[in-house]
């Protein structure tokens, strides 16, 4: 692909973006200032919706609680290319942008994605594109990419508000991607060297475990012998899990990590309840399942050691990311054109980044790319993760996205059709929903 194709159309779109530059960066920075965690992005969602509506787009709201979708139709309805931005923050109380009450903070740069989403909408809403492009572009803001607050989300699942605990999973279930043929999302990164776009690579799959030990409370000073200490069960389980690490194979890129969200109620009472949420990640779902079984065994060992009750709720997490090489090529060519000839790094497609994303799920259903832009500094999910270069993170990224969409949909959407026909999806939506649903299970165990 020659990135100089459709130069006129791209130039017009870029001018619109440059013209709205402050407004576009302002969207990212406004979201940074009001971080909200997944499925609770009420203000963020309303704000992004209003910004998209200000461009004349009709926005469907409240998809999967806080998700949004706005479609701009060009000369024909299909194919549809989706540009995605994620609404939610993580929780990092020490982050300078953290909400003092909730600890929510954009320590993963999702606010920049929403800037890109708005910037792309600015660029792709110009009237000059109506005739030359065929098909549609969907601007999609998805809730809850960070798979956190599992207990809260499980409670909402029990209340019937959700079936899956991530935004894209829920939106797939609700059919929000049924008319989408391919999708892209640009994520920020603090990797070195700065100033690059990274294409290729993959991410880990994972499952999520919510673990609850139930013991018996007793006065911790007066009658500890009458108690059954759920926190000790947790401690044994942590030790047990750590002993298993030598059995993890490097090729599997296994990660087992969790947090204890409840470890007792008051210090002078033997903890009767201890709660953990954690993940088992791996290169593929077979690797995840293998290790998850070992972790489950270790949690049982904790219950057996102490003689308490255990409940493990396993929830489907994310599938490994399958980046589409043809889409990556288009994206990379535009990135070079916009950010310079050395601005693109291509990661081997089997090189796993360790983390996980629900773009992985989407990538099993349609061609997807999830490139990174190294415009941040600090450690992702750390208190020091900040966008260092908003021009690169938001403005240039938006331009690359817009140019890629133009390349896909110009000439009767020839490139988009080629991408769509080039590779068969790994799963149908029905298969996907069944596969993920089957990962739901509850194991109860009594340590006696």
């Amino acid at each position, binding site marked *: 692909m020659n990135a100089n194709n459709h130069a006129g159309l791209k130039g017009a779109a870029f001018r619109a973006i440059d013209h709205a530059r402050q407004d576009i960066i302002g969207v990212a920075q406004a979201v940074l200032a009001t971080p909200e965690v997944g499925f609770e992005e009420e203000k963020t969602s309303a704000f992004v919706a209003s910004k998209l509506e200000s461009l004349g787009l009709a926005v469907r709201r409240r998809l999967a609680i806080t998700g949004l979708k706005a479609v701009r139709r060009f000369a024909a309805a299909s194919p549809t290319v989706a540009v995605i931005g994620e609404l939610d923050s993580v929780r990092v109380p020490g982050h300078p942008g953290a909400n003092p009450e909730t600890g929510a903070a954009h320590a993963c740069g999702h606010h920049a994605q929403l800037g890109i989403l708005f910037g792309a909408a600015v660029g792709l809403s110009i009237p000059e594109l109506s005739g030359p492009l065929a098909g549609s572009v969907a601007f999609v803001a998805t809730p809850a990419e960070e798979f956190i607050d599992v207990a809260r989300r499980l409670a909402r699942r029990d209340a019937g508000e959700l079936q899956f605990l991530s935004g894209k999973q829920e939106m797939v279930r609700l059919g929000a991607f049924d008319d989408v043929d391919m999708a892209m999302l640009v994520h920020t990164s603090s990797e070195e060297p700065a100033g690059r776009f990274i294409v290729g690579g993959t991410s880990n799959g994972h499952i999520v475990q919510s673990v609850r030990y139930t013991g018996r409370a007793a006065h*911790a000073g007066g009658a*500890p*012998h009458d*108690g*059954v*200490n759920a926190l*000790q*069960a947790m*401690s*044994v389980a942590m*030790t*047990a899990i750590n*002993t*298993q690490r*030598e*059995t*993890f*194979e490097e090729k599997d890129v296994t990660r087992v990590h969790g947090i204890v969200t409840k470890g007792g109620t008051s210090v002078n009472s*033997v903890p009767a309840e201890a709660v953990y949420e954690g993940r088992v990640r791996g290169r593929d779902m077979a690797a995840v399942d293998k290790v998850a079984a*070992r972790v489950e*065994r*270790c949690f*049982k*060992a*904790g219950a*057996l*050691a*102490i*003689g308490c009750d255990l409940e493990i709720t396993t929830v489907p997490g994310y599938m490994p990311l399958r980046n589409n090489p043809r889409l990556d090529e288009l994206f990379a060519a535009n990135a070079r054109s916009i950010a310079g000839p050395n601005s693109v790094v291509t990661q081997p497609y089997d090189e796993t980044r360790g983390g996980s994303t629900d773009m992985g799920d989407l990538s099993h259903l349609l061609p997807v790319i999830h490139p990174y832009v190294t415009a941040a500094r600090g450690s992702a999910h750390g208190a020091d993760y900040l966008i260092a270069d908003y021009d690169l993170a938001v403005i240039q990224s938006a331009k690359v996205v817009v140019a890629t969409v133009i390349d896909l949909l110009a000439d009767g959407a020839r490139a988009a059709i080629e991408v769509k026909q080039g590779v068969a999806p790994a799963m149908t939506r029905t298969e996907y929903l069944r596969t993920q649903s089957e990962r739901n299970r509850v194991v109860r165990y009594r*340590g*006696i």
Partner: protein
Amino acid sequence: MPPGRLPANASIDDLKRAAVDEIDRHADEIVRVSQRILAAPETGFREAKTARLVAATFTRLGIPYREGIAVTGVIGRIGASNAAVNVAVMGELDSLIVAAHPNADPDTSAAHACGHHCQIGSMLGVAYGLSLSGVADHLGGAVTFMAVPAEEYIELEWRSNLRDSGKIEFLGGKPELVRLGELDHVQIAMLTHTSSDYEGFSVGNTSNGMVGKVVRFHGTAAHAGGRPHLGINALNAAHVALASIHAQRDTYRDQDTVRIHPIITKGGTVVNAVPDDVRIETYVRGASVPAIVDASGKVDRALRAGALAVGGSVSIKTLPGYLPMRQHPGLTEMFAANAKKLVEPEKVVKGGHNGGSTDMGDISHVVATIHPLVGGAAGVAHTEHYLITDYSLAVTRAAKAMAMTVVDLLSGGAAGAQRVLGGYRPAMTKADYLGLMRGMLSDRTYTE
């Protein structure tokens, strides 16, 4: 009073004085026996040389004896076998294993770091005092001198094999004597143990009971560098098991004085293979049988948890150990009154509870028993620092106190024994005792 000249109407005080004088006359000889044993330490059920020395002394004193009782025990008696009252005076033949002890055997590391060599001295001292003096002729009952094997509950695997080959049933010498009927016609038993905690005597102390456990974790060997993921690490199972044992320490009541103190006797074979065979020995001690049974159950659960955590299995052999000590109050008073004639009265003190265990506890459940402690030692018991500093106290005066107590019990037609035992019934019959002990035995392999 010269030997052999006791008048027919000799008073209790005359008899005591005769016995004490006789012990004094042979004090060097008696102490030398102890010191010869110190120089040739042997662990339980292997005390061949020590037993021969005891037998030679009985021969020298003209006391008939039997050998090879419970493998190495030697039992001599003065008085009729069918006497209405039979007092057993005991001493323990065996040593510990403390390689760093100055008197350790260079080959076996056996060492008398618990003062048992003094017990043999004090037991034989009583024999000297009662036999050579002619006091025995004035006693209305029998005195049985028991040199007992294997009080230290060690070398569990070796003894377990001895058990499997039918040479013993229980792992301690005194339970074996009970089983073999050696206590069937004994009503009273005494043994004086050395201590580094007292300047004189301590009477009436209690001690923990215990069970022993021989544990083996079964895993799967694999190259520890090349294929750790194919191994099942039995050492990690043990690690989790030990952590699990510790995690339950807050569940033991203070009054139960639970002690659990495992050692790893095998922790793998070669460092570059995943350990597939790891062995632990432990005691589970407590102040009462229910406390021991409760703690033993928790330890078993912890051991199973270790195996479960790594996906291996564990064999747990629980062996009946010793019962808690219950000393007879009347006998204790009688011994204390005599002890006060040998040391300053304020140096005869009431003892407390000892977290250790002794198979005199078992004896104390089937016959009226005392197990006074005598000073004369320095350093912490069971360490290389435990040395006898005052043989006159540890051996000679201990012998005198016991000899005088025997006189109190058996002179005048055993009137003292009858008075002190009036209405006394042992805590258990022999059948009850053996039933309890056999009920504690279990041998199971767990694969969770």
